[in-house]
């Protein structure tokens, strides 16, 4: 029980994928201009990441290792992720056309979200079990969701501020992300994992 909590805490706060591992920066900046879009993106990423990390663990354990095909790891994982993304894309298009339009290109681009592949590969490297890899995937996605939604809130506020011309848009967004990253450094060492 404690271990589960620690894994979650570690992947959400201490080893946050975006702010301490600097993975998944592209969707982090791309889909954070509105809180609504960010929430949609968060759910999509949470789904893809959790399922991808479990499926890829299964594939790794029961296909790649028995067949000694570890060198095909990346290809397999990308295939899994791409299929999942296709699936969620169809689902969102059906259930929420507005969110589909809002996410635009970033929805199919979850495929290339390095955080997703990163979780899958890190699970293999850290020799996680089935349960912990699922947890780790979910925690990483929750961490991504947390900072994405926080960041979207901040950006909505920045959007209506008289920011100097030179820093409008991405420059200030990146500076803000940097400041958030500094703040998240406060969590370092909180969980030794």
């Amino acid at each position, binding site marked *: 029980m404690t271990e589960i909590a620690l894994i979650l805490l570690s992947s959400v706060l201490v080893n946050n994928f975006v702010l301490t591992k600097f993975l998944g920066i592209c969707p982090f900046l791309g889909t954070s201009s509105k809180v609504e879009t960010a929430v949609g993106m968060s759910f999509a990423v949470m789904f893809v990441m959790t399922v991808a990390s479990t499926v890829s663990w299964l*594939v790794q354990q029961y*296909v790649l290792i028995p*067949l*000694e*095909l570890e060198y*095909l790891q990346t*290809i*397999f994982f990308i*295939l*899994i992720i791409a*299929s999942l993304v*296709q*699936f969620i894309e*169809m*689902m969102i*298009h*059906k259930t929420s*056309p*507005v969110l589909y*339009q*809002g*996410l*635009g290109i970033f929805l199919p681009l979850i495929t290339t979200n390095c955080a997703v592949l990163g979780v899958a590969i890190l699970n293999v490297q850290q020799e996680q079990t089935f349960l912990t890899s699922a947890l780790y995937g979910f925690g990483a996605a929750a961490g991504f969701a947390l900072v994405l939604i926080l960041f979207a809130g901040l950006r909505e506020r920045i959007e*209506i501020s*008289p920011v100097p011309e030179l820093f*409008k*848009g991405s420059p200030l967004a990146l500076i803000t992300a940097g400041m958030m990253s500094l703040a998240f450094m406060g969590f370092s060492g909180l969980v030794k994992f």
Partner: protein
Amino acid sequence: MISLLYALASLGAFALVAGIVLAIAQKVFHIEGDPMVDRLDTLLPQTQCGQCGYPGCKPYAIAVASGEADVNHCVPGGERTMLQIADLMGVEPKDLEEEAAAPMLAFVREDECIGCTLCIKACPVDAIIGAPKQYHTVIADHCTGCTLCIEPCPVDCIDMLMKPELIEHWSWPLPDTKRAQLGHERREQHAGHS
């Protein structure tokens, strides 16, 4: 050699499974038509004026939804409509090609009207009433000011008049302060490229 076969077979099998799952998903999540068209259509001002190059608001909505038309062709809708469409479509706003004119109303000079009904046929919202050989009249509350009735009139008896300003419809402008100007600057900028 064997391992290569394994690799090909497993990859192929996996791709097949993924393909089947996706095919089923495609069936389950199949959508009829384009839900964006109706959403876009509600944003348009429904003047049916054809200034966008399409024969009405709905055709323009269809064209925008399919990506065929740009978001900035609706003249009477002005900047606000353009921004809303761009927002809904998730694309960058574009500059308007034409400034929207002040809202106008068509008015038939009745003593000159010969009762030919051509303007009645031209009106896209049935805002002109009258029978053949009788004076025609524009229902002011229904007129969208699209000017489509001007052209067909053989005796040029239709004028476009400014819509009267009503005290009930008067609204406060933005406060005239430095900060408000900043806000406007931002809006212009937003409309420009951001």
